């Protein structure tokens, strides 16, 4: 555990100093800070919805970019720079290395979300005159969405190059956001044949459902009505954790066989 935490700490320390991630964070913070200025365009109660949705949109986008950019290089860079040799020649198991990298990435995401969350809370408090109760659960959902994406990227990074990983992980994130709605649409359409429906159903089962985490955004999902938000949040976070554990186990199995 000590080794895993040491690797996680080193990963966090390196990631929070990456210029590209700092730039993304700063741009996101700036946009969140000025987001209340867009409120008047909607007018009345719509202003609140617009400010909250816009802020969440920026946070989700920044979290997605940070997760993909940070995690694609986490393992390949260590191999390329040969740092991994000094680590694996110590009494460190390969699974500890993968876990350390993942926890370091999640720690970085947590730090970034904390920064964005604080600024978002301050900006909305100033614009609306009160704290909006949807912000903290929403941030939590997006944090878990990014953590799940980080696990996907780390999984791919154990066997593909960083460039391929960008496209693969980006594609999985995109499909994971769209597939469930697409499946609902084709299930409602009686003309869709099983040849089309079955592959979509299979993909929906295999790929992580990233759309589940987007419910706080009433602009994107206006038709969504959640009767018990707490249960839904807990259920979705549990789903993320189960999926993350599965991806990490697969990553560890692949990485254990990998030659560097």
């Amino acid at each position, binding site marked *: 555990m*000590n*080794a895993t935490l040491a690797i996680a700490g*080193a990963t966090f320390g390196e990631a929070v100093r990456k210029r590209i991630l700092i730039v993304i964070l700063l741009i996101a913070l700036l946009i969140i800070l000025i987001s209340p200025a867009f409120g008047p365009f909607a007018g009345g109660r719509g202003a609140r919805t617009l400010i909250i949705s816009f802020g969440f949109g920026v946070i989700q986008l920044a979290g997605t970019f940070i997760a993909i950019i940070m995690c694609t290089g986490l393992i390949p860079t260590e191999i390329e720079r*040969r740092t*991994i040799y000094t680590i*694996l*020649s110590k009494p*460190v198991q390969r699974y500890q290395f993968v876990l350390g990298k993942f926890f370091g990435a999640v720690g970085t995401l947590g730090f970034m979300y904390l920064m964005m969350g604080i600024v978002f809370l301050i900006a909305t408090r100033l614009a609306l005159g009160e704290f909006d109760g949807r912000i903290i659960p929403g941030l939590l959902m997006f944090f878990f969405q990014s953590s799940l994406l980080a696990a996907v990227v780390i999984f791919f990074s154990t066997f593909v190059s960083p460039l391929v990983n960008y496209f693969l992980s980006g594609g999985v994130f995109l499909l994971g956001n769209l597939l469930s709605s697409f499946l609902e649409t084709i299930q409602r359409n009686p003309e869709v044949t099983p040849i089309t429906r079955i592959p979509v159903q299979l993909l929906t089962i295999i790929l992580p459902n990233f759309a589940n985490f987007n419910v706080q955004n009433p602009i994107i999902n206006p038709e969504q009505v959640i009767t018990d938000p707490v249960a839904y949040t807990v259920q979705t976070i549990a789903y993320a954790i189960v999926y993350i554990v599965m991806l990490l186990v697969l990553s560890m199995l692949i990485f254990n066989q990998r030659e560097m």
Partner: protein
Amino acid sequence: MSDLAIKTVNLTKRYSGLWSKHPVEAVKNLNLEVYRGEIFGFLGPNGAGKTTTIKILLGIIYPTEGEAYVLGQPAGDPKNHYKISYLPENPYFYDYMTGREILTFYARLFGITEPERSKRVNELLDRVGLSRAADQPLRTYSKGMLQRIGLAQCLINDPELLILDEPTAGLDPIAHIDIRDLILELRNQGKTLFISSHQLSDVERVCDRVAILNKGMLVRLGKIEELLAGGYVEIIADKVTNNVLEPIRQLGGKASLHDGRLIVEQPDDGSVDRVIDIVRAAGGHIVSVKPYRRTLEDLFVETIQGGKSV
């Protein structure tokens, strides 16, 4: 306890690409024994299979065939890693960390806890001469300082076996000497050092035995003094006539005469005095007598160009 620090038996590593029909054999049937307490030089041209062998010994890659043992245990056993350490060629360390932080990081990988951790880190910083730079980020370190911190991370667990890949490459002469002295000091403490290097003069000075690898095969193995036996003495003399050539050649020397100047390459086996006597008796004048010791570089070039296998 086995008296072998490293043992390989018919160790073979083959790389086969996804689309390639012909696999590349990076290491072929390597049989090697490294004794505890010795400094062992592991030599070979680029691509000879040295780093591949080291990676197998560390469990970073797996052999295709054969076996490898480190300190009596199968190579790659993480429990064994408490007793070994490794310095890769041109190592990169997290450069945002300070010298003290990077050593603390490596100490944590061994599960070394406070206050022992801080004590060891301070001792090592002092030992490699980096106490004053301990709290500077590694990105401000020179190459020599980084190599020292690399050696310090190797010593954090007080290992029995150190595997060093090019420990003196690219260092200035002072840093070079410091690292070489540290290696000898470690041997005096009873540690085993397995050194892969292209710095043949360093290897010649510090190693007890060497192995030379070429194209994945072991081509030379032995004690330095045995491998380098066979030096010669060059004798140059003036005012010499043709009639000295034959008696000198009968003593086993290579003699040539040009315009009265005689050049003899005489084996260093006690016959040098007799050659000098022959020259003087013939009225010749000795200009110089210069011993030439065979160097590891000579042996290396001869071995690699000869392509001989043991």
